[in-house]
Every structure is written in C-alpha cells, then in structure tokens.
C-alpha cells in the first residue's frame, strides 16, 4: 500500500513537486502545506509532477484548485504534469481540467513557463 510522499526539486529555477502514492483526505493536508509554503515564498510558478500518483480524492483536488486560484491572483500558474489514467479521469469527470494546464511531463511544463 502506497503512502503519499512529496519530493521538492528546483529545475531551471522552477519548483517542481513530485508526488507519489494516494492523495486522500489525510494526505492532501501535506500537499496543501507543501504548496502553501512555496506560495508564501512568493514562488509564482509551480509544477506538480503526478506521474506516481495512483489516486486523487476531492480533498486533493480542492487543495490543487485553491493553490491554482492563489497563484492566478499573483499572475502565476500551477501546472500539472504526467497524470495517470485514473487521475486524468478525476479531472475530466469533474470538469477541473478546464482550469489547469496539463502536460505529459514536467520538462514540457517547465518549457512552457520559460516561453
């Protein structure tokens, strides 16, 4: 059983949060704190790499949307990368995909920020 883990990386000066495991009611709080910490440091562009995320509940979705909203208000953006089929379905089922820029991998997402 996979517990959620978060790894921070800085690639070309863009913070990339690599998440793995299941994002549910409990673990989404850690994700929320990680994103809030970076936003408090005035990072305007963040990439969340979800290649190893197996499951995302509405709590996780809410945390991502709340962070996106904050960053948009700062003229920034939260970009998502490498969504797995089930997680991709969560975004399309709820219609949350219309709010996010979604990329096949974090390199593509970073390239887009750098444009």
């Amino acid at each position, binding site marked *: *059983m996979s517990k959620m883990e978060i790894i921070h990386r800085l690639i070309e000066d863009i913070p990339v949060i690599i998440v793995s495991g*299941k994002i*549910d*009611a*409990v*673990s989404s709080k850690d994700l929320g704190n990680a994103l809030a910490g970076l936003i408090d440091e005035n990072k305007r562009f963040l990439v969340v790499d979800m290649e190893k995320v197996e*499951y995302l*509940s*509405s*709590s996780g*979705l*809410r945390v991502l*949307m*709340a962070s*996106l*909203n*904050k960053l948009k208000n700062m003229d920034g953006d939260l970009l998502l990368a490498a969504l797995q089929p*089930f997680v991709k379905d*969560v975004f399309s*089922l*709820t*219609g*949350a995909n219309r*709010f996010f820029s979604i990329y096949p991998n974090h390199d593509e997402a970073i390239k887009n920020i750098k444009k």
Partner: protein
Amino acid sequence: MTRKPTNLIYGVDEKPPLATTLLLGLQHIFILSIAFIFPVVIVKEIGASPEDAQNLICMAMLATGFSTALQAFNKGPVGSGYLCPLLNGPAFVPASLLAGKAGGLALIFGMTAIAGVFEALFSQVVSRMRKFFPPEVTGTVVLMVGVEVIPIAVPKFFGVDSIHTSIQALPFFVALITLAVTAGFNVWGKGKMRLYSLLIGMVTGYAVSFATGILTIDQARLIFDSASFQIPEIGKFGMSFSAVMLVPFLVAALSSALKTMGDLTTCQKINNADWKRIEMRSIGRGMLACGAGNIASGLLGALGQSVSSSNIGLSIATGATSRQIGYAAGGILMLLAFFPKLAAIFVIMPTPVMGASLIFTVCFMIMAGIQIIMSRMIDSRKTFVVGLSIIFGLSYDALPGLYAGVDPMLRPMLSSSLAVATICAVLLNVFFRLGISQKMEFEIDPAADTSEKIFQVMEKQGGIWGARRDVIMNCIAAMNELLDAAPFLGLMGKKISMSVQFDEFNLDARAVYEGKPFEIPVAMPRIDFMHDEKASALSLAAFTMSRYVDRMSFSERDGKTELHMHFEH
C-alpha cells in the same frame, strides 16, 4: 449500438467494396484450406481410396461454405452475425476415426449429423449457463484455441515430420520468408497492404517454394490435370448410425460448442470497443449455425465442422471483420466445390507456407485470450482456474500418451489440449465459486481509517467476485468521497456501515451513518471558494461522488441515513 474499435478498418456492420470483399474472402479461404488435410488423414487411416478423399474435400467446401455464410447472418434465429468461418476441424477427428474404423464413411456422416442435432439443442439452453463461462474461463478457452494450433503449426514451420525430426533448412527458410513478409506488411503496411498481408505473404511463400523446389512441378501439375468443372456427388456414401458412437460424437460436439463460445466471445470483443461481458444471444445463434452446419455435413458427406480460430486471428490481424467477408468466403468455397482446377491451388499449398500462416494467426488468438482474461480483476481463485487449466491443457502436448489410459468413452473429452483445458476451466470455476458470498459488509471509522482501508477491502473483494477493475475503482472512489465528506457531516468519532452487493450486471454499495442526507450539487463549486475548506469541501466531495456513480439516492430512518450508490457492471 456498439462502438467500432479504432484498429478495425472494416467493422462487422460495414460493407467493403466488392473487389475488396472478394479478396478478403479469398484470404480467409487460404487459411481454411489448411484444414483440408484432415479428410485426407481420415481417409488414409480407415483405408478408403484417394478418390474418396477428393470427394470429402469437395463436400467439405460445400458444407463449410454453407455454414460460414450462415454464421455471418445477423437476422433470424440462426447465425451469430460475425465473420467466424467454419472448417472440418480437429475437434471431430478422434471421434471420426473411431466411427470410420467401426463402420466406414457412412457411420462418420450419420454420427456427424447426430452431433449437429445435439449442438443445435445445446444452443437453445446455453443462454442460461452464463455463470459457468465468466471471462477467465472463456479467455482461457480462447488462449488455448491458439495454443492448440501450435503443435500443428510449428513442425510445418521448421520442416519437421515423422522422417525429418530436426529443423530442415530449406522449408524453414521458406516459412521464415512467408512469416516475415506477412508480419512486415501487417506491422508497417498501410491501408490495403495490412488488409491483404496474409495473402501477400502466402503468394510470396508459394513463389519461393516453387523457386526452391519445395513446390514441385508434379504437384503444380495437379492444377492442370484437374477438371475445370464438375458437379460434386452429394451424399455418395449415405449415413448409418450406432449407439456406441454416441458418446464420442456428443463429446466432440460439446467441445466444439465450447470452442464456438470462446471464438464468438473473441468476435464480440474485437468488434466492440466497449465490450464488457459475453453476450449469450449471439453465442446461442452462432452455436445453432454450427449445429446446422454439422447436420449439413452429415447429409452432404463431409466431416464434422467447428469454428476456425485461425480465421478470427486473421480478422484481428488485418482489421477486417465485416460479415460481408463471411458471405464472400462462404460463397467462394461453395463455388470451388464445382471447379476442381481452382480448388487444387489450395490443395497443393506448401507445408512451410501453412506453418507460417498458422503461426501468424496464432499470435493474435493468444493475445485475444489474454485480454479477455485480464478484463476482470484476478484473485487467487481465478489464478488457479486459469493457471491449472493451461498447465493441464499443455500437458496433453508436452507429454503425449499421458491420457491414453483413460476410459475410451471419456477419451474424446481429453482428446486435445483445448479439450483438457476447457474441461479443467469449467470444473475449476464451478469448484472455486463455492462459498463466494455476493454480499460483503464492513465498517469505516472516519477518525481512524484512511482511503487505504477501502482500497484493501474492495480490491480483495473485487478480485473474489471477478468484477471489472474500472467499476470497482469507481466504487472505491465514491466511498472515499464519503470519507472526505465525513468531517463536514459530523461523522468524526462515529462509524459508517458499508455493505456492497454484486452480481454480473450490478454493483450496489450502501452506506449507513448517523446524520442527515447531504445536498448533491449539479455543478462544481466555484474555484474562488476552494480556499475555504468548510465552504467547499463537502459540496466538492458530494459533486465528485455523483460523477462516479450511475445512480444515487438517500433514505432516512431512526435518525440514520442510508446512501445508496449504484454502479452498472
């Protein structure tokens, strides 16, 4: 209305242009013609004349042509509506040998007709037997249908026979070129090139065989020596019957019927991108067509027939499953019975070309079987059903003579790797179904449990039930949304009782908790409310939950709420 898979060029309901349909039909006949070897084998074994063999091949063309076209019918009570050609298959060979030795060709034909009647009767009750044929059973049968062809195909591919027991360089070279050309056009060929990949490979194989002397001038002369037109002698040998032969022929008919079920399951799957489960109506009609085909075989004077897995492999490979091709293949086959010169082209097919073509089609059958098996969640019960059936099925070919000591009455049931695997799979499925409850209950403590508990319980139970992974995942996700909503429903420190009920068509989950029903929003909460957890978490969880279920409702009693979530399976 079914959705056509993207890999198909011509789906079952589509009409390719006439010339394309005829060429594709001809391509199927090349595969079917490989089975003309069985009448020759029977005739040799029972000591009949070569002329009798020629007559048998002629009748095989008429009988299998008739049933191939009949199988493609999608209107009326007979015919599955799929391109699923029939041939004088190996399923009837052991029983036919017994009958031939006991009473000659007349007894073979009489008993074949009886087997056809049995198959027709079986087709009328098969729709009520679906629980005996879940995807792990039908998938194993389809896989073994492919595996069964391996001992026929591989010796032909390597040029091995009773005289040459190791690989022969020249036949192997011809087979390799045939396979390479066929597979090459199939993988890299665009449009029509992929459609005709096998035809191109076989024509290349004939040419290389002729150039290398594998196909001799004497053999080729058979084409010129044969009559241009000849009316076949129908029912030349008559029919006779014997009660002693009943069991072997009924067993052959049963194993043929199960093979039909496996092959038609593959047809259903390859023609429907949204395939979920076996549809028994078309299976029953398809089995009836096979039964009618065997009655026709008996009346005409041909061997027993069953559906051809290799041809289904060919349809998958070429992406052409139109039933028009079935009509074309059936029609051309029947015509060939009147034109021995044309029929001779198929009769002289070089052995390495047969081997390469069979290997090419077997690849697709094996993959189709694996895909059917894996369409459901697999637990240890299903692992044993699939694993043991394949192991014992393979034992038939790996250890020849292993089942020789079995009572002669039962021997036809163990007459091939497919028969052994099919019987194992059906019996093991019945055995392992014992004690499986269709209802399961558990409790969630929102203060202590995480999503892990729901995942653990439901994944294990989904495997036991053999449910579809995507439906179980939707149920898990919907239950987890209730867990996400629990703090905002005042459920921390209280227990939620979950009960889940499953049958092949429905998955119903009921959650009972102390408290009130909650509102299900029709739209997603606004993004600018998301920072306020209290304002948005419950409505987002409820909205997300509603997206996973097919139907949901609440009922209240004694201060408790029951949330009913329904999922179609």
